[in-house]
């Protein structure tokens, strides 16, 4: 069997104690909630913390509060299973429920959390492998080596963002609450992500994501689509989240955000695509133009399942279909 290395597990009594331990242990420690990302990585020696701080049991991190008209707060420890079934999300913020629904598989959704998915590690064929496998290729830039095997001439790591909920939060322009021993702050979701495969999160290592605030939704429409080979289990090789604010008069777009994930090291907003819709009706032409623009902005590399130039073509199709979903929901 593949087994965990030796380590110390800490189960803090509350959030403040968790933050204190994290601050004290520094780089020796990592956080775990559902464990669906950390434990496999530790078994493969991709991550080797001496101390693991468990957050799963902390009730401070649970709960749904607020309303679609004033904004909804989601605790970081809400499980993906809870998110995908939450009636208020299904009804008013469908992209959040759909995003959660699309992740991994049912048993993993029982365990996985909102916070965990937002912070999930970037992935790559040359990195998500056991220690011995990586030794065969002399390791890689992200862990223990000098070369990025996806782009051997590159000085940066190109591991891919593999979260389904981050693009949704970018599209919604949600806010994230971060807590550490030295205080709390909130940031826009987009400010969490850094286009680098190694330093892919801009939060400090001692900060804990505690809550996600969804903005008031009112008449705004959201939609989400994911691309993966199989109907379950697989990580995204592309995902699209769209948020459209229609004008009072129906189909004219007043504001828009289109977020794309699974393509580069950070989820990104396709600003050109979104801007192309402003002031226009959502119809076949405007959608086509937006989808094309999104494709041009997307440059996947060969580090996930299926052919990367095909994935680039699919950006256009997936953006188009996501915008068609929005249109149906108007």
């Amino acid at each position, binding site marked *: *069997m*593949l*087994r965990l290395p*030796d380590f110390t597990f800490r189960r803090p009594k509350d959030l403040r104690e968790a933050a204190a331990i994290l601050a004290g242990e520094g780089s020796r420690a990592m956080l775990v909630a559902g464990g669906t990302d950390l434990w496999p990585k530790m078994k493969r020696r991709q991550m080797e913390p001496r101390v693991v701080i468990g957050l799963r049991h902390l009730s401070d991190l649970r709960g749904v509060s607020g309303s679609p008209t004033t904004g909804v707060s989601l605790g970081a420890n809400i499980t993906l299973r809870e998110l995908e079934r939450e009636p208020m999300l299904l009804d008013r913020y469908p992209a959040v429920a759909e995003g959660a629904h699309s992740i991994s*598989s049912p048993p993993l959704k029982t365990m996985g959390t909102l916070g965990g998915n937002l912070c999930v590690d970037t992935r790559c*064929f040359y990195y*998500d*492998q*056991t*220690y*011995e*496998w990586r*030794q*065969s*290729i002399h390791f890689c830039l992200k862990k223990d080596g000098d070369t990025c*095997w996806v782009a051997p001439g590159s000085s940066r790591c190109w591991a891919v963002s593999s979260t389904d909920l981050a693009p949704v939060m970018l599209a919604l322009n949600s806010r994230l609450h971060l807590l550490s021993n030295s205080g709390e702050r909130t940031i826009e979701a987009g400010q969490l992500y850094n286009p680098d495969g190694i330093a892919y999160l801009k939060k400090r290592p001692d900060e804990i994501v505690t809550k996600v605030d969804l903005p008031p939704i009112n008449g705004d429409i959201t939609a989400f689509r994911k691309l993966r*080979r*199989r*109907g*379950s*289990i*697989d*990580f995204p090789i592309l995902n699209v989240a769209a948020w459209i604010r229609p004008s009072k008069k129906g189909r004219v777009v007043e504001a828009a955000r289109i977020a794309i994930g699974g393509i580069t090291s950070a989820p990104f907003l396709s600003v050109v695509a979104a801007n192309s819709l402003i002031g226009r009706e959502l119809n076949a032409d405007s959608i086509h133009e937006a989808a094309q623009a999104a494709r041009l902005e997307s440059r996947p590399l060969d580090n996930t*399942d*299926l*052919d990367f*130039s*095909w994935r680039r*073509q*699919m950006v256009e*199709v997936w953006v188009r279909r996501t915008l068609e979903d929005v249109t149906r929901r108007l």
Partner: protein
Amino acid sequence: MPDKLNVVGQPLRKVDAAAKVAGRTIFADDVVLPNMLYAKLLRSTRPHARIINIEASAAETMEGVKSILLGSELPITFGILPVSQDEHTLAIDRVRYVGEPIVAVAAVDEETAEDAIRRITVEYEDLPPIMSIPDGVRATDDPIQAYAEQGNIHKTISFEFGETKSALEQSDLILDDTFFYQGNTHLPLEQHAAVAVYQPDGKLVLWSATQTPHYVHRALARVLEMPASRIQVIACPNGGGFGGKSDPFSHEIAVAKLAMKTGRPVKIALTREEVFYCHRGRHPVLMHSRLGLKKDGSITGMHFKTRLDVGAYGSYGVAITYYTGALQTTTYHIPAYKFEGARLFTNKPPCGPKRGHGTPQPRFGMEIQLDKAAELLGVDPAELRLQNLVQPNSLTANWLTIRTIGLRRCIEKVIEASGWKSKFRKLPFGRGVGLACGCYLTGAGLPIYWNNMPQSGVQLKLDRSGLVTVFCGSTDIGQGSDSILAYIVGEILGIDPLHIRVVTGDTDLTPVDLGSYSSRVTLMTGNAAIQAAERARELLNDAVAAELKVPKDRLVAADNRIFDSEDSAKCVDFAKAVQLAEAKFGTIGTVGSYKPPASAAKYKGGGVGPSPTYSFSASVIELEVDPQTGIIRIEKVWIAHDIGRSINPMLVIGQVEGSVYMGLGEALMEEQEFRLGVHKTPSMLDYKSPTSMDMYSIETILIEEPDPVGPFGAKEVGQGPLLPMPPALCNAVYDAVRVRIDEIPVTPEKILRALKAKSQGKEGRFGPQSFPTIEYRDPMFILPPWSGGDGRSSAQPEYTRKGL
């Protein structure tokens, strides 16, 4: 054949079903012995290298480490085929693939063994790795295996049955097609595991997740230099085999040796990645087929060439190379047939037998090619096949004996059930139907090591309590072979099969059965069981007849009793019948065995292909292709399988559905790719196997025309239904969007590329572009049956040929 069957043909539970659903089945990793140690293997991280030095002292001195084993302690090689016993338990001076075992460590627990492995350093001197067929064809001074024929070309095969060149020249239509079937692996859910113990009296016992305990037994005796009678191999029920657990493995031998060195039981359980390194899966095969037909649709000849990317060691590969040329002739009459095959070593985990054993690849090529031929001739592909069908009780060009062949009814049934005639070439763009057929052996006619002994033996013990125990060396890998034995014996002796005790796969206790591979088990163990059971019933009838004063031939065995067919009140219950027989004859025990009939193929290499009988399948797939994305959605699969007779239709349908699942998994997503000398996807996430969300409906039609050779007329079902799936899929894709994908897996990108090429006025096809030239040594020429041949090879015709 009996008139009324009470057990055979019934959808009964399996004898081990209750244990399986209760989680009580003892798989190899569930075996626990007192004072047990745990072993781990250190494996090569280089694809091709000399081993310069192994530094293990840091591991040796670790607390909890009890023994370290190096390759030099086991210098004798092994390998499943006598012609390629090229594997060392642990590599000694050379490694040939990433993942090859080099050192074994036994420690008090697996964590300690793993830590110990990480403290061992191996110094390598890299050699150039050979990672593809084109690489393998190039000349070299330092081949991967020194015993290969030419450089890294292990072996070439060239057979010609009838003058094929002239037959093709006389065709009205000639097709030349190149196909590629990517390599894939079994991915059983259970990882390999084994436990060994060396008893104080010098007896070695090994439990293992193996499909072939008899071959493991032989390998242990050979490598450990011990008499086989002092070794016991127990095959645990397999958590999936599919051919991946049919070789003797390094980890089995290593754990046995560690048990001998430490005097304690030793267990090893492989990680998923290590299972990918054991591999023994489907060979990637590049193929070229030249097919000739007359304008009336009759086939004139076929010249088929295959190139196999073998991996670093032989495994079953030589046999499989022959299999890539053997069964082309079994479904449609081919008057002249030439086959040329070549196998090339590469620095990858060795390929071996995976469900279909080298036959799915050529079947893929020929079923697509026939589809192309039908289109060029303007005929329905079903009609083209029906017109060319092989006749029952006939010989093929390559001297295979076809007995029953239910393929006509298979084709007719799937055509009818699917609504083919209203759909083929008539559905809107993006929807299509495709047809393909297949044929597979019911057990290889010859054993892996040449001998004259039975391939299967069954012993029966009849107890005074009425309990019957069946002993047989076969292994239940999930296909239900234990249950088949119980059903057959239960039918003949008239007793409840679920109360029969079945003891299998134990080399101390059970008579030899060669193992669960080549779909041999139902036919061979079944026939042996029939013989043993009929002998037992003879004794019982004799004693009961005397007791009841009724003629023997009026006695019927059913419902746990033996009674007079004319007056069922005159009966004895089964237990009493056994007691009567024991009183008359002494302790009751009977034996049955089975050896396949001699084959008509007498030429060298003709040992691969013959079988007591063959199963046949036909399938229609209906699917949708999204032309914007190339993504395929399978709507439905209709599959008809010529089973002869279903011993248990529920189990038969289960095998059909499982074969369909695996065949379509291969067609759509299973593939082995190597980068930087390493297996790119050695995990269950990245090596794709369809989930419950990827399924479609399957309609199974069983064609039952009992074959006299099979037990109650039964033929195989565990492998045959897989064969039509990949070509039927590709044929359906063509019907849907009119592009040819001449390779698998069929990914969305390949379909879009083919569509794009077509839209640019080029050929609407995605597939291999070329086929490398190789020199064939010792081509053989064999007259086919209809030209007065005798099954032997004759002198070469005037021309000698180099490979095309």
